[in-house]
């Protein structure tokens, strides 16, 4: 998938969990991504974070380490 699309999808997830009252957004983003993203997509996300994670929400960057 195109990096822009992946960034947008991941950020959308972060945007939702950031609005939730509990302070565990990175963990919840990570668990959402592990539950619904196929391993190829997760690998792409991790690689992207390795390479700087341009445009990703900081919560996604934290979450990617947990996936």
């Amino acid at each position, binding site marked *: *998938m*195109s990096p822009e*699309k992946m960034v*947008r*999808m991941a950020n*959308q*997830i972060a*945007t*939702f969990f950031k*609005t*939730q*009252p509990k302070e565990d957004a990175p963990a919840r983003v990570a668990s*959402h991504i*592990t*539950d*619904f*993203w*196929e*391993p*190829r*997509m997760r690998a792409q996300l991790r690689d992207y974070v390795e390479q700087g994670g341009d445009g990703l929400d900081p919560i996604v960057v934290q979450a990617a380490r947990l996936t």
Partner: protein
Amino acid sequence: MKDFIIPPMDWKDERDMGTPAKVGAPVTLSIDGFDVTVPEGTSVMRAAAEAGIQVPKLCATDSLDAFGSCRLCVVEIEGRRGTPASCTTPVAPGMVVRTQSDSVRKIRKGVMELYISDHPLDCLTCSANGDCELQDMAGAVGLRDVRYTAPDGGGLANHFAARNTSGEANPEWRPKDDSNPYFSYDASKCIVCNRCVRACEEVQGTFALTIEGRGFDSRVSFGAKTDDALASDCVSCGACVQACPTATLQEKSVIEMGTPDRAVVTTCAYCGVGCSFKAEMQGDQLVRMVPYKHGKANRGHSCVKGRFAYGYASHKDRILNPMIRDRISDPWREVSWDEALGFAAKKMRGIQAEYGQKSIGVITSSRCTNEETYLVQKLARAVFGNNNTDTCARVCHSPTGYGLGQTFGTSAGTQDFDSVEHTDVVIVIGANPTDGHPVFASRLKKRLRAGAKLIVIDPRRIDLVKSAHVKAAHHLPLRPGTNVAVVTALAHVIVTEGLMDEAFIRERCDWDEFQDYAAFVSDPRHSPEANELLTGVPSAELREAARLFATGGNGAIYYGLGVTEHSQGSTTVMSIANLAMLTGNLGRPGVGVNPLRGQNNVQGACDMGSFPHELPGYRHVKNDDVRDLFKSVWGVEIDSEPGLRIPNMLDAAVDGTFKGLYCQGEDILQSDPDTKHVAAGLAAMECVIVHDLFLNETANYAHVFLPGSTFLEKDGTFTNAERRINRVREVMKPRNGYADWEITQKLANAMGANWSYMHPSQIMDEIALTTPSFAGVSYTVLEEKGSVQWPCNEAHPDGTPLMHVDGFVRGKGRFIVTEYVATDEKTGPRFPLLLTTGRILSQYNVGAQTRRTENVVWHEADLLEIHPHDAENRGINEGDYIKLASRSGETSLRAKITDRVSPGVVYTTFHHPDTQANVITTDYSDWATNCPEYKVTAVQVSPSNGPSEWQEDYAAQAAQARRILPAAE
């Protein structure tokens, strides 16, 4: 007419009882010396019928309230003067009724004599011969001669002769109205019993028919005098045809073929209402579909699609032989089943050998049966060895699964359709039931006419907002994409004005989470006033709507794809669940959260484990215990990682890691967003197997075509929007040779599986074995009970009409904070308008079926609805060809100028492939589920003089890809 009916009718009585059933305290009376006990309010006619005594009748039928016009049903009642009509006389305790006596016999004969004096006596050649109540009643009352004659010199005093014996035209005679493609209206046979008019009002709720004129001049009319049936308000539901006791309103198929000789009860394969029908047959030919009186979803009613639009099953476009080709630029070659399946299996296994186990997958369809869907996902999981299975429900109701799962703990509507009869305030949000779910709409309108209040939340002024005898209390015409803001504002009003049901929340929900939620919604930034500019909804109206919903009694919410198909689809579903919990509207009749499912088996497709992350029964593949259970039954290890969803499959295909697809009953090229991207994904695959009735658009990119069977040609089950598992029955043998479940089994076996199902009932047994909510379901149970609503298991042997009665499936209900987040899809100078999409009554989904029926008379092309103001600015006139462009692509279609849409919003349907509305839609999607954002696209509209370049290229490619080589001799 004596029907031979499968299943045998001993479990339900199909007689016409004359007047509707009542509920009430028992009343005992005596009829012809027999004691009969019936509920209070029952008519004497129905009480007699319960005792097995049929009182002659013409104007009464048990789907309609009694009318009392024909006086054929008169009886004698001890202590009462005269001879009251039994249909309009309610029972009373101790009443003594005689249904036969010399005097009533005389009256009845007189009545019949009058009727027959103005009726042609051509019974032998009449289309209703054998199925005519007038004929039956003439026999029942012993009518032997008709003494009336035309008055001397007064000309003809009848309605049935076109000319008198001297050849003069009869001014009372009317020619047949054949304008409707499915039924004809022959006024010469009308007895003016009013049943059709009442059916149109009471059952359908359209009010298209009236009785015009008085006395001898009175006749049935389709509205204004010039109107024929087709030009009138009639929506062709057929209720009047079914109610008509004579040949006046008659199905054209019966006129052509004659009366049927057997009937099989089955389920409509169109929308998620899941109406039950009797397929009435002559041999293996379908004569007509008649809604089944005991169908619990439809209670004897139907819409134009289910009743009439079955012609596609025998359409000439249907493909009946398997076909293959090496390249999509080649023409198709017809081959044997063995060759096609061998070719497909070899290609798929070859791809896996080269690109890995996860390089192929399946797409199941919400149009297929539960058993077929179960097999297709099993094919991916047990034979391909991966979880790459998705369903077209991805693109419609996946947010419902996620949102309701998070809040209530299960992904399903909470009520049955009967529940609407107990509701006081209804919110309809992002749904257009009169077009999308017509039979539910009729039931809803009936309740609204009886006084329930309606709140419509929709960018368009849908028909429910104002139509005959129905008017919404509030219409909140929001800007597309602002659902969350509007629903949260409703909650704001309810919480800040203290209108919530605190007792319910304390008992049934997580109180801490409620505190967080209450604090969140109370924030002034969620007030209707603060959101007015954003949502376009007047704040005063929104406040009134919130108060009405919170305080108006039983409140029910019905929603459709206008909720789910957004970037915030899942969030909106959660906000709806919040609203229901907040007002205590769960767990009893008349309330609840009710997703209206688009296609017939969306619910079932979700239940059956079509999604890549969960096995049947909504259990995540990561759970060891669930995988172990399936391993013990299937004998193979199941992958613990989620598979690819449809959009992910296409992305992976473009990236080169996904190469083979088995797509059953689904046309992703036409139905999925961003057509160009879908086409690129399909074109990048090495083996696309399409299993369908027709060479659909996706098949243009396919290498293997497996011809499918229609719902008339196979056994199985569909699960409708109320979780009701209904039987689909084989009424004729598959024209393509095999039922679809057999084809999937053959493909699996060609790939090395060893499946040996002999009948779909065995597949259901396996579903019951592995899926707790289906544990009590079997074909035997369905045969016995007609249908059941899941969960159906040891705790609920009769199924579960209402969910969450004593507690939520997940325990405590969860309130979830629902912050509005604007979609990235924004209007701007280049694309200043918002496009939203929907469907219309006569067509269904991508139209593959309905376009191949006479339904095209109502909708021959997709049109773009645009507000007069926006049209004028652009120099666009009614009917002009216009260009519709978004950042994804452009297409062209004709304009329809209407103020049903607000300024700034345009609307179209997606039923026709040559329009390709999805060339315009983008790849934006719901944050949680990737459900595409069909309902909001920024567009520009401008005059045009013909098809866009894409449309022309596409048409050329399609023509090329559809070539079939003549079969080798």
